[in-house]
């Protein structure tokens, strides 16, 4: 009865505005509040998926149709069939977005536009007999990145945010390739790994900042996972293997993996915990194989690794129960 009394008082306070739902969230230390219409939201998510799929299937159909007739198409038709259709799809998506009941349908058209516009630009360049150099590709993808950033700022669509990240990533790699095409960097043979390391860290920070954005939570999981895999994967690879190991990265890696595991309690993300644990296990296996398998023998080394895995697994489950049980 005490509990019922308490709940009745809380409900009354909520109705009178003395406390808010946000106050209840902060008190209970829960990061997400399940929306009241969660069932309805699930249905909407399924329809979004169908719109995305529809757009992709339309793109595949166009690509196959145009591809079959490619040799018979004139230059102008080639550009119209790719870049023209892409731009038309983008504009259609923008126009549909102005209607409340057709807003979500616009997703399909934006997907078609996103898939066709980059390819269409390269088709136009090919038709115009312009050499596609690395510098030109870099410029095109940087322009696409800027285009979708502006699109996101104007229309606030998750798809545009995703495309901004995608084209931004492509631009980053192409730009650094362009800078280093006739020379070598101070990173030497590990230049690609350092690029991926920096990008992974950027993804993790962006994933963390997207959590607070009302419209972007669906991207948070992808950004976190890709970011952690890139960051820890690159750090792991930079450690190298005996006899060419990099002592600095071999020593620092367990700290990074443990740091990611610790961060899972702060950012309330299961991806951090799971991936950090997997990489830590991988590191233990690697170090054991590298330094202990010959001295103590493989069987004993495997025993050590097994016990270490059991310990790490127990720790991960304990952390999950204590800090992340409320996270979906």
């Amino acid at each position, binding site marked *: 009865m005490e509990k019922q009394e308490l709940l009745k008082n809380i409900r009354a306070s909520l109705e009178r505005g003395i406390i808010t739902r946000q106050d209840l969230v902060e008190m209970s230390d829960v990061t997400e509040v399940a929306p009241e219409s969660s069932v309805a939201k699930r249905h909407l998510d399924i329809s979004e998926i169908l719109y995305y799929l529809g757009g992709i299937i339309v793109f595949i159909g166009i690509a196959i149709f145009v591809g079959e007739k490619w040799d018979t198409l004139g230059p102008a038709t080639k550009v119209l069939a790719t870049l023209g259709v892409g731009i038309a799809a983008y504009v259609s998506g923008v126009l549909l977005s102005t209607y409340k009941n057709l807003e979500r349908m616009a997703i399909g058209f934006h997907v078609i536009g996103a898939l066709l516009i980059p390819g269409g630009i390269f088709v136009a360049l090919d038709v115009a007999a312009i050499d596609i150099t690395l510098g030109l*590709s870099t410029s095109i993808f940087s322009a696409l990145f800027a285009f979708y950033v502006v699109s996101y700022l104007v229309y606030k669509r998750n798809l545009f945010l995703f495309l901004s990240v995608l084209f931004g990533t492509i631009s980053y790699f192409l730009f650094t390739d362009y800078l280093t095409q006739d020379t070598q960097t101070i990173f030497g043979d590990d230049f*690609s790994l350092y690029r991926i390391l920096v990008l992974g860290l950027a993804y993790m920070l962006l994933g963390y900042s997207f959590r607070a954005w009302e419209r972007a939570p669906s991207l948070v999981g992808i950004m976190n996972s890709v970011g952690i895999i890139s960051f820890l994967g690159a750090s792991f690879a930079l450690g190298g293997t005996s006899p060419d190991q990099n002592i600095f990265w071999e020593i620092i890696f367990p700290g990074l993996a443990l740091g990611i595991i610790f961060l899972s309690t702060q950012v309330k993300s299961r991806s951090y915990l799971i991936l950090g644990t997997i990489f830590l296990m991988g590191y233990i296996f690697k170090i054991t194989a590298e330094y202990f398998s010959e001295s103590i023998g493989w069987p004993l080394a495997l025993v050590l690794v097994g016990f270490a895995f059991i310990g790490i697994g127990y720790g991960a489950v304990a952390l999950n129960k204590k800090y992340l049980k409320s996270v979906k």
Partner: protein
Amino acid sequence: MNWKNNIPLIVGLALPVLMIVFVAVSIYLPQMGGGAVPQYDFLYMTQGGGVNTPPGVEKYYYGVEGDKLTRQEVATTMQNPKDPTAPTVVPAGKPIETAKFYIYDTKQNTSREVTFADAEKLVLDSRMVSQDSFEITQGNNNGSIFTEIFGGNRDYGSWYISGHGKATKLILVSQPGSYGYFDFRFLGWITQK
């Protein structure tokens, strides 16, 4: 915009930009400031070995002994493979000479072909690192999958002259049909012509 709340976003966006700026500065700053210039040219050779190379066995093996280019005649006969114990020998193949020699001008980044007779007059330092601390290094694949798809050349297999914080790609001559970077053999730095 509340800057304090958006620090992760700002740092996340700034990191790739800073990486690009850092790479650009580390490449172009040494070049802009002049920096050290290689003082020594080097001698290299190519031997083909690709689809255009005629069948046969190279007549000479080339090397550097002391500070001079030398060559030794390679045996062009071999034990009869059908009867290894027999005293008779059979030709290993038709003798061929595909070697070509080039002097690489490190200031102009150009190659000039020379004959073996001219090459053997040069005084060479066969160590990989020159007396002014430059060395010939092999390129690595700094290109990404995006470079492959969207244009640009794969760097793997290129050669560089590197030292004093910078590296310059070598514009080498290789024989038609040869296997690219396999067809480059550094012989030595030219200390005296």
